[in-house]
């Protein structure tokens, strides 16, 4: 990673004990598009806002990706950094399966992603990743939702939001979250929150939703399905 001239870490402590590079990375995340994760009864959903410049082919942009059959991930922050992490995460998952012949549990996947991100805060010649991840999955421990930050910290959530609109989103989630929420309700809630924070006219190409349940495996909803959900939120 870098030649010998950059074998020192660029992430160093300030006198006050802060790693400012990580703080700035978190700033990059807070400027990114809002992403939401909600753990429902029997599954987890993640949703993200996809606001792209005019004339972009939105169908070609994927902000929600699959890591394994039963684990999905989305992000807020820098798209290219997300792409790299997805690639490395998929590789770690396959390495795990190759050695143990067992699919990687969700918490171990979150741990692996967190360890990758932490490495980039303590290695020579690299900068931290400018993304926070929301990882959703289903395994023998049931549905789980994790957030992973540029520092390498990771947290398990019942519901959370990251990115631009996280403050309003989290307030809304805190007000009305219950552990018995159905997947359907969770999707409605997430779409409603993204819609309320969206600047301008929103349509089914501006939101991506991914979900995982015990039976389904990780899937992303088609724009047609999202359109239905959107229409239901305007009626309500």
């Amino acid at each position: 990673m870098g030649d010998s001239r950059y074998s020192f870490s660029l992430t160093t402590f300030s006198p006050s004990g802060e790693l400012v590079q990580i703080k700035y990375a978190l700033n990059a995340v807070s400027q990114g598009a809002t992403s939401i994760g909600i753990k429902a009864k029997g599954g987890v959903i993640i949703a993200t806002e996809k606001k792209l410049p005019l004339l972009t082919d939105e169908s070609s942009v994927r902000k929600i990706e699959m890591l394994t059959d039963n684990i999905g991930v989305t992000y807020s922050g820098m798209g290219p950094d997300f792409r790299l992490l997805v690639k490395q995460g998929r590789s770690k998952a396959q390495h795990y399966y190759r050695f143990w012949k067992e699919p990687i549990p969700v918490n171990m996947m979150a741990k692996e992603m967190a360890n990758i991100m932490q490495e980039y805060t303590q290695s020579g010649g690299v900068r931290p990743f400018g993304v926070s991840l929301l990882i959703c999955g289903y395994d023998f421990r049931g549905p789980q939702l994790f957030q992973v930050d540029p520092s390498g910290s990771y947290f398990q959530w019942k519901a959370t939001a990251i990115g631009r609109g996280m403050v309003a989103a989290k307030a809304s989630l805190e007000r009305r979250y219950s552990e018995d929420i159905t997947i359907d309700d969770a999707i409605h809630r997430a779409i409603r929150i993204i819609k309320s924070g969206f600047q301008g006219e929103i349509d089914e190409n501006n939101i991506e939703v991914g979900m995982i349940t015990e039976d389904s495996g990780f899937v992303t909803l088609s724009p047609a399905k999202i359109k239905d959900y959107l229409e239901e939120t305007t009626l309500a």
Partner: protein
Amino acid sequence: KIQIFCHQMSILQHNGSSVIAMAGKNCVAIASDTRFGIDAQTIAFDFSKVWQISDKLFVGLPGLLTDSQTFSEKLKFRVNMYRLREEREMSPRVFSNMVASLLYEKRFGPYFVEPLIAGLDDKNEPFISGMDLIGAPVLAKDFVLAGTADEAMFGMAESLWRPDLSPEDLFEVISQTLMSAFDRDAISGWGAVVHVITPDQVITRTLKTRQD
């Protein structure tokens, strides 16, 4: 100092050992002889080739006994780290896969052991498996065995084993299989130890055998 016999066939026959694992109804058993020898000489008669990995998981490691010892320690290390890291017990199936992976990592300079794994999973279902020294696994429903008396053990096991053996019957069957087989093998024997694993407990018995 390793003495070279003109008719020594393989490093796996340097020490001599016999191990067998069998499945019964909601129970498994694993047994080994207890001879520790170097070529023709017997050094000790209390060396079991079966190690306990966790409450209901045992591994038998016949073959070159220095590798048996070292490899069993490496396996315990891995299982302990897994328990701490993943916050769960390693299931017998995953343990078996790990052993196979670890052996294959040494494909061109292997551990000279032929592991047998016996245990009950978290639903108390019996699990047994065996593999060769480079990790080619076999998942059996009846029995697995390895060691210098393996061909004799196959004959006995095939005749005596039947499905759904109770823990007491399983003990009898596995003991008779092992003893009759290693009595025909010059470098196995000198005592035996049998572990029977049930959902409630593990019963370990030593067998009184011919001391030759």
